[in-house]
């Protein structure tokens, strides 16, 4: 069997086309990497896979009939982890799924299934954390604005939560790491990309951009946060476990106002 390294456009549809190609050409895929990140493999042929919707949809359809709805979700979520090598693990799981008659997406004795499940769980945790730690700041033009930098690419899976919750306010959540945001205009959400002025900060209420009352609510929240602490039960270890330090910069209750 020929061995090949596949590169693709980094999208889920693109990845599904890699799956399609591996079956079509009956090749052994040794690596699947997003284009641009590829390092030249000396002894292997590299093929750049073009994303074609029709092929991706065929794989998608097959996958949906051979997995439970949760199993399918786990595949999608694990993909969003963007971890190196996750594509190959997913391919192994998909191979296993297609090789069996019954649904095996919850067969945790299969190493690929177990690993994808664990990765999906990590992504799920990050999704949940972002739903918790997003802190909106009200801008001068009445948009509730938040910046995030999640470990995994969770914006596509958190927007639904915010849309159903904040249906009557305009909001924008911007992923600083991946340089795109999601904007809700009271009717629909759409992805946007933009350059953010640096002095907007990730917390605080610079009057050039934010509503004059904004900074006061951040201060009230911090006040509340401190008043609700029971000193004789102090447990910083648990605190940090729940609110890892890498998220502190977004949380007004953890910031020091000058």
């Amino acid at each position, binding site marked *: 069997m020929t061995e090949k390294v596949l590169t693709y456009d980094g999208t889920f549809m693109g990845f599904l086309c890699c799956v399609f190609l591996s079956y079509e050409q009956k090749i052994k895929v040794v690596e699947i990497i997003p284009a641009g990140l590829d390092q030249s493999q000396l002894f292997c042929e590299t093929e750049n896979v073009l994303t074609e919707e029709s092929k991706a949809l065929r794989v998608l359809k097959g996958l949906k009939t051979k997995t439970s709805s949760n199993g399918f979700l786990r595949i999608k979520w694990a993909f969003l982890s963007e971890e190196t090598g996750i594509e190959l693990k997913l391919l192994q799981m998909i191979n296993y799924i297609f090789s069996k008659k019954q649904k095996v997406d919850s067969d945790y004795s299969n190493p690929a299934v*177990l690993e994808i499940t664990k990765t999906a769980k990590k992504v799920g945790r990050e999704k949940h954390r972002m739903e918790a*730690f997003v802190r909106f700041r009200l801008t001068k033009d009445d948009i509730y604005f938040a910046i995030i930098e999640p470990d995994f690419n969770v914006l596509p899976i958190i927007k639904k939560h915010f849309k159903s919750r*904040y*249906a*009557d306010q305009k909001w924008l959540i911007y992923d600083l790491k991946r340089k795109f945001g999601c904007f809700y205009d009271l009717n629909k959400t759409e992805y946007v990309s933009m350059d953010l002025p640096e002095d907007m900060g990730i917390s605080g209420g610079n009057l050039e951009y934010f509503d004059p009352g904004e900074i006061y609510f951040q201060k009230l929240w911090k006040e509340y946060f401190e008043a609700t*602490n029971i000193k004789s039960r102090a447990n910083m270890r648990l605190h940090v476990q729940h609110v890892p330090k890498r998220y502190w910069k977004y949380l007004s*209750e953890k910031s020091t106002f000058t």
Partner: protein
Amino acid sequence: MDFDRIKEKLEILADAAKYDVSCSSSGSKRKNTKKGLGDSSGMGICHSYTQDGRCVSLLKILLTNHCIFDCAYCVTRKSNDIKRAAFKVQEVVDLTISFYRRNYIEGLFLSSGIFKSADHTMERLIRVAKKLREEENFNGYIHLKSIPGASDELMREAGLYADRLSVNIEIPTKSGLKLLAPDKDHEDFMKPMEKVKNEIIQYKHESKLIKSTPKYAPAGQSTQMIVGATGESDRDIMYSSAFFYRKYNMKRVYYSGYVPVSNDPRLPAIGSQVPMLRENRLYQTDWLMRFYGFDIRELLNEQHQHLDMEIDPKLSWALRNRQLFPVDVNRVEKKLLLRIPGIGLKSVNKIIQARKFTKLNWEHLKKIGIAMNRAKYFITCDSREKELKDLSSENLKSIILQNSQSKFRKDINNQLSLFQ
């Protein structure tokens, strides 16, 4: 908004509300309708955690800390010399909405000291909730305190706006209550619970017949007991708890290690240690009762009135019932899987899924994530090597303790030395 004044009130009234441990914001199923604000149909979310590690999900405040009662264990008691304050109804509404829109909170938890009368106080709490629902079209979570002694009429109304209602029984036994809160009547606590329970049943029944029946306290009721303020045994506490779950269909009973707030000779002195380990063991027992199919009498009874602080209650039970073990994880029914020490609910479900496909061995079980240091002495699986099982329970316990770590180990030594 006068921010400075609000800030001062918030400091006083959040501080006074913090001893109420309930923070749950789940189980409500209240969806956003007509493009309003908020949705509490999903799971609860903890938006932050205090430095003592407790979740911050709701804006938890008192409407006022003026109180006509003088319960010894309570920081807002009449005779305590502290700053008093009171929010206006509109101030609480504005604060809740502003915090909610910024994604700080899941909703409001509103309690209050009792001013003038029970009904007067309850009526004011309801007014806040009603305003939020009707004027602000707010679908976030609202947890209201049922004020002991409030009338049936008000309790019926409260449930129409609140997602959850709770009365804190605080002292698990009648005699304890008499000692520490002589002007409160045990019956006053039960009355609103009974009313809310009956309303929930009735509304559920009606909503099956008429689709447009409004929701009534969709997240149910809860209560809280203080642990370690009076001399109750773990058995007393858990039997009370089992009674509340059974009699009033409680969604949750919370256990709150007593934080000394008074120099009253009837209570532990200020500065004494909060019994956090004991609290933890009680929660473990509560879980065993609610999710693992244990009857409370199996865990605590005449012979065993206190939980073992060194090991978890399931392990403790298993060591007393060695005749049931070892069990074969590849065959045994779910009911018994749940009773194996070191295997939690999630692992049980994973095992049941996985064993449909493969016979599980130690490697598989490790990967699934069960606590092998405890579980291995109670199970067999598809592996040759077996763990020593002809040890006495005492031996087994000390082996397990030697081979495991607990963040509570230092507390155990402390708390044990108190009794020596």
